[in-house]
């Protein structure tokens, strides 16, 4: 049955800035402002309407949130001042943690790789990040991906903006232990609040 408020409540309770969803006035400025507008399935406007209409699975399995480039155009133009970018991020996170986000969605995969890379040393190692991204679909595809982009890599290397030695160390925090403790604790609190299992 549509237009029951159950899913809206779930979003309000569990999604970052989710309590704003009900305030959308359906003007569509966000949809017209998104640089990836031609590529997603549902505009933010539609996503918010679908939440209100109770279309839970369609929302959480949508690829739209994963198309966000974080350009913040929608935020600054929204006449109702909804933090749309954050809501989209929040929905992506929630769908991802529930396991409902589209499998193999490239940004979803990249985002996970990025976070893992970040948590490992406290700073992002660009080369490792790039390689893990290229090798996300297995070794053979990784070689192909890397070869396809080898000109860029070589150019960057020449410009001393990628260094192969980074693979064997690179930058990292001194107090890595403390950093890990902070991240783990934060994750623990958040998961407890949202009823997600730690994983």
């Amino acid at each position, binding site marked *: *049955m*549509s*237009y*029951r*408020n159950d899913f*809206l409540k779930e979003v309000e309770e569990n999604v970052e800035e989710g309590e704003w969803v*009900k*305030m959308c*006035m*359906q003007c569509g400025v966000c949809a017209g402002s998104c640089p990836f507008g031609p590529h997603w399935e549902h505009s933010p*406007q*539609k996503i918010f*309407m*679908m939440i*209100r*209409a109770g*279309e839970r699975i369609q929302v959480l399995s949508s690829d739209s949130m994963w198309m966000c480039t974080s350009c913040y155009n929608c935020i600054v133009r929204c006449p*109702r001042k909804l933090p749309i970018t954050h809501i989209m991020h929040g929905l992506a996170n929630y769908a991802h943690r529930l396991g409902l986000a589209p499998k193999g969605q490239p940004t979803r995969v990249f985002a996970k790789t990025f976070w893992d890379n970040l948590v490992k040393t406290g700073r992002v190692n660009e080369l490792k990040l790039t390689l893990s991204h290229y090798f996300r679909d297995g070794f053979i595809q990784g070689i192909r991906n890397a070869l396809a982009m080898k000109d860029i890599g070589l150019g960057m290397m020449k410009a001393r903006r990628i260094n192969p030695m980074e693979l064997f160390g690179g930058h990292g925090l001194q107090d890595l232990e403390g950093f890990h403790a902070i991240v783990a604790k934060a994750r623990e609190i958040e998961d407890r609040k949202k009823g997600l299992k730690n994983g």
Partner: protein
Amino acid sequence: MMSEMKTAAYLCSGCGLGDKLDMASLSKVAQKAGKMAIVREHPFLCSEEGVKLIHDEIEKESVTHAVIAACSRRSKTEAFSFPETALSRVNLREGVIWVVAEGHEEIRQEMAEDYVRMGCAEVKKMKLPRGNPESGKEKNILVVGGGLSGLTSALEAAETGYKVVLVEKETRLGGWASKIWKRVPFSSPYNDPQNTGILELISKVSAHKNIEIHVNSAILETSGAPGKFVVRIGKAEGTETEVKIGAIIQATGFSSYDISKLPELGGGLPHVVDQAGLEQLAIKAEGKPIAREDGKPIRSVAFVQCAGQRDESHLPYCSGHCCATSIKQAMYFKDAHPEVDTVIIYTDLRTPGMGEDFYRSAQEKGVIFTKGKVSSVENAGEGCRLKFRDLILDEESTIEADLVVLATGQVPNSGVNIELPEERNQVSVLNLSYRQGKDMPQLKYGFMDSHFICFPYETRRTGIYAAGPVRRPMDMLQATEDATGAALKAIQAVENASLGRAAHPRSGDLSFPTVRLEGCTQCKRCTVECPFGAIDEDEKRFPLFNESRCRRCGTCMGACPVRVISFENYSIDTVGSQIKAVDMPDEFSEKPRILILACENDAYPALDMAGMKNRCYSAFARIIPVRCLGSVNTIWITDALNSGYDGVMMMGCKHGDNYQCHFVKGSELANYRMGKMDDTLKQLGLETERVTTVEVAITDHEKVAAFINDYAETIRIIGMSPMKGFG
């Protein structure tokens, strides 16, 4: 009475007039052609000293008719105010030196001299207006309708010190406002429904010493005019009262559109109500969770906006208040029980004024809004099933709800449609004894016509004012403001009437129309065309002027084929003599003359403003202000063409549904009359372009010069009039 005519002309050479014009030559024109007994030139006429000169001469020399050749008649009105002297203003500043391009000294001087001739000719045809001798002194105000609008009007007028007679057809005062649980907020914060305050208002009105209340009553007859209406009030039981009234406010409100005409939206089903029906349930609940009539607590409710509204087969218009009303009603549910699912289905959500904040507050409370078009409402299980096209998600959708509320619209209680009086089931409200019909004119969709663009409380029946939703769809806040405005207009009307003066828009004007009955052919054009129903017929079928109802627009004068209607200071002759006073160059001079008759309400100020902004236009134009294009008699045009004018242009207000004419129908009538001008032109052997009409709004100051110049170019192309020298 006025003694013998003594004329004087005062020419100002200030504001650059002396630099650009040959003042000595102008003085000579006033003296010789204008035949002014006294001619004075002054370098600063509106100064204390200049004004004193005029005053002293009026006193000492007994000047009865004066010409002031200086700035526009719209400037320096306080300095040049001589109430005991007939006065003509010659516009040399805004009308000549500010609008004639440099390098045209000769034709500029000719233009100025013509204007001086015209002023002198006009003033000699003027009489000093003495006011309406038939004025009525009655100042009581009748308010018809005891709802929020009527109660507000009554209280406002009573508090200002006027006696009020309040008539209500039902047995109790209060109207719709007493049949709702709460109202939308009028002031910040716009968050929650508010108490209506209607009981307090009723008790204030009931206790007021200046207010006499007649409930369970209707108006049997209304006759007379502002300041002297006679109204018979009948009680349902059969008793009758007669009251003398100065002005009337009609605040008869609206009826709710009949829900049973909307079966496709569930009208008639047990769990489908209109907004009034929901209010009844809310009153019963007294702020606790709302239950249905069958006692079942409501856990889900759907509101259908625009039910039978903006729909050609029902009400074609938007009633304005219903979106905010549904928002308020959804809050009834959310405030009492936040778990109730409330959905408002709209096609366009319209929340004017501060309604946007109220809408936002409802969203914060969890009211869900969805854009959709409802196709059906049916019984389903314990409640209703509502099918709609979801216009955002672009899919068919279904909602099941315990209750469905239809936002139906406001239907005005405006009485008899005087243009279709034979239509059935019409019950008159005012029962006017006017020849024009029993009730007020309507504009669209049955709403009483008021001057909705410029003067919202003014109707076409002088001294009778419309207030509230009978005038246009509106909410309670707007009705309160409307009622207050109408009360103030009614007060102005009784005060003006008692002094024999015109009401709006020539408020304070003492002139009034007189008719030479011996010349009248009983053609009835004046009685039919008067936009204000001011002219009845006497037993011998002659026009009978009700001066107190007259707005002094002169439409009757424009209509009269035998030219027997005139005002003391505005007549066929005051304008005709100006037209004839212009010095007409011959056919080979290449100096055409274009007569412009400009409505003094919008076109003339726009021309003045063009002058202030130095927008130049053709110095071949000769502009005469008129009270309204409706007052333009075709004789002026034929006279002008016969005397050799090359073109005649009329500048007046927009007409039609979105009219801006201050006299509502004046410019429309002028347009109609001029439609017949083509035949006259053909008879004279003249091109149809020689007479033209343009619509000018007061804001068109950037366009008027172009209108004139384009027309001058048209005249140049078709050539000079062949009529010169025959006039």
